[in-house]
Each structure stands twice: as structure tokens, then as C-alpha cells.
């Protein structure tokens, strides 16, 4: 339990990369990448979590109440936006790749020319 969420994060990173490496469909690849990305959300929020702390919103509770770290919340918010926008851009590229190569299989995108 002491390190369980950190291990979950490490697992998600590796399994996500496994998906990226073995994927035969670009849309699948991109979704796997977003799983790998989600490991960072978990890691960030885990290191800022304080047992017994409330959410850092002091509307109904007075300032001074034990609360979790607001900074990791802000960082993760940014991280989620980054992940989503990169995925959107990648999906657009995948649509393009399908148009040019007639396939979403990374193995069929052709080899590098002239080496």
C-alpha cells in the first residue's frame, strides 16, 4: 500500500508503451499512448496527496484545514489538456496516413526511402 499508486503509474506507462510498440492500427496506437500519458496524472496527484486532507477549496471549510496539494492539481489539469490535444493532432495525422497509404497499419506505411 505504501507505494501502490506509484506502481500503478509505472505499470500504466509500460503497458501503454507495450501497446504502442505492438499496435497494428494507428488509432489503437494513439489510444495506447494516452494510457501511457495517464500514468503521469496518477503519479503527480499521488505525490501531492495527503491522507485526511480535503480538497483545497476553502468555501465551506476554513483556511487552515488540512488539504491536499493544490499545485499538483493545477499541473495535472495542464497535463490533461496537453494529452488530449496531442491525441487530437495525432488522430488527424492518422486520418491523413490512411488517405495516403490506404491503411492504418504502421507496418504498411512504407519504409524510409533512399537510405
Amino acid at each position, binding site marked *: *500500500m*505504501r*507505494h*501502490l*499508486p*506509484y*506502481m500503478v*503509474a*509505472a505499470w500504466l*506507462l*509500460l503497458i501503454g*508503451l*507495450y501497446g504502442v*510498440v*505492438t499496435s*497494428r492500427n494507428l488509432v489503437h496506437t494513439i489510444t495506447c499512448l494516452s494510457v501511457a500519458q495517464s500514468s503521469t496524472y496518477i503519479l503527480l496527484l*499521488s*505525490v*501531492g*496527496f*495527503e*491522507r485526511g*486532507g480535503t*480538497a*483545497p*477549496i*476553502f*468555501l465551506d471549510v476554513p*483556511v*487552515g484545514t488540512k*488539504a*491536499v*496539494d*493544490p*499545485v*499538483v*492539481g*493545477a*499541473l495535472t*489539469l*495542464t497535463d490533461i*489538456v*496537453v494529452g488530449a*490535444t*496531442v491525441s*487530437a*493532432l495525432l*488522430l*488527424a*495525422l492518422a*486520418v*491523413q496516413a490512411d*488517405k495516403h497509404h490506404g491503411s492504418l497499419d504502421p*507496418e504498411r506505411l512504407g519504409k524510409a526511402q533512399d537510405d
Partner: protein
Amino acid sequence: MTPALRRRVFLVAAAVAGALLVWGLTGLPDYGVYAGPYGDVLNQVAVAERKAANVVAAVTFDYRGIDTMGEEFILFAAVLGVAILLRAQRDETEQPPDEDAADRHAPGTSNAVRVVGLALLGPVVLFGIYVVTHGHLSPGGGFQGGVVLATGALLVYLSGEYVTLRRVSPELLTDLAESTGAAGYVAVGLVGVAAGATFLANVLPLGQPGMLLSAGTIPVLNLVVGLEVAGGFVLLLYEFLEQTLVIRRPGEVT
């Protein structure tokens, strides 16, 4: 590498990398123990200094507001990129659009779905606006509310009124919303400079914590972010949507 060889090489390397990760991660404080000073200090001082009840909002839009400016422009760049990629392609393949043709409707929309979708539209838009405007008081803010608002536009699509979506949020309008939001963030930053303070300084009156009009520039930044995110996400969905519908040939859709 062949796929089989690649999988094997990956598994070996990932085992080593994973072991290293675990080794390093166990050097962290135990889960549930927060060591650092940053968050504690902000939890102590932010409400008094910024009159924002939601400290995450104070961090996002004030203490670390420059991060959020970068984040907004990441979204901006991605939307631009998607637009460039897909628009260039559309120009190559687009059939002359026929606004009223039946094949431009989403497939298989029943009247029941249509009614439910339209009935939900009002509450969704209201909820989105609420989330955007109360970001400094409660969970939520420009980003979350913006996505909710974009979902509203999607409901219009789901209810089969795709033609309406074309009229409600044509590219021009969403482009404009998105770039106004993005430019607005920088402009708020420059207001701080103009007032003789630093870039992104919170120079507006702070008010009292818990009030709708409080926390200075934080709700203003929430508004511009909401505008940008709503415009940006509608545009993202719209670009993919447009692709789908333009390619579809008559007769394929019933």
C-alpha cells in the same frame, strides 16, 4: 525489426526500465504523506491573498498563470494543426456541399433522440456557463466549462440537426472565439504590464472570497479560457465531423 522480434526486444528492455522505475519510485515518501512546502504554503496564504476560495484556481490562473497561458496555446496550436491537416485534405476531396440534402444528416437519428438531444441543450449550455463563471469558487473553470459548452454543440449534432450546427457554429465563428480567447489571455497579461506591474499580475480589485465578483483577474481568465476551449473543442470535433460527412456518398446514408 519484425513485429515478433520487436516485441521480444521491447519486453526485455521494458523489464529493465521497469525495474529502474520501481527502484526510483520507492524513494518517494510513502503514499499519503505530503512532504513539500509548496502546496502547504499556498493553502495557507492563497485565500487571503487572492480572495479565491478555490486554491487550485488561484494556482492555475494566478501563481502559475504563465503555465496556463502556455497550455492554452498548446490547445490553440493543436487545433490549428488539425485544421491545417484536415482542411487541406478537404479541399482536395470535397464534393459540392448541398446544405439541405438528406445525406448530410447524421445516420439513423430517430425523432426521440432528436427531442431528447434538443431538450438537453439548454441545461447543458447553462451548466457550462455556470462552470466557467464559478471556477474561482468551486471545482471547475474555463477549461471544464468550455468542454461542457462544446458538448452542447455536439448535442445539436446528435439530435440530427447537423445542418443547424453548420449554421450555429460555422468555422468562422469558432475560429474567432478560439483566437479571441487565446489573444485575450495574453491581453490580460499585458494589462498587468500596462498597470506598471509584471506580466500576468492580478491588478483588478480582489473583492471578498466566496463572491462571484472576486479574485481579480482569475474569473476574467476563466472566461477567456472558456471561450477558447469551447471554440477549440467545437472546432476539433467539427473538423473530424466535417471529414466524415463530406466523404460519405449519397445513398450510403439512410
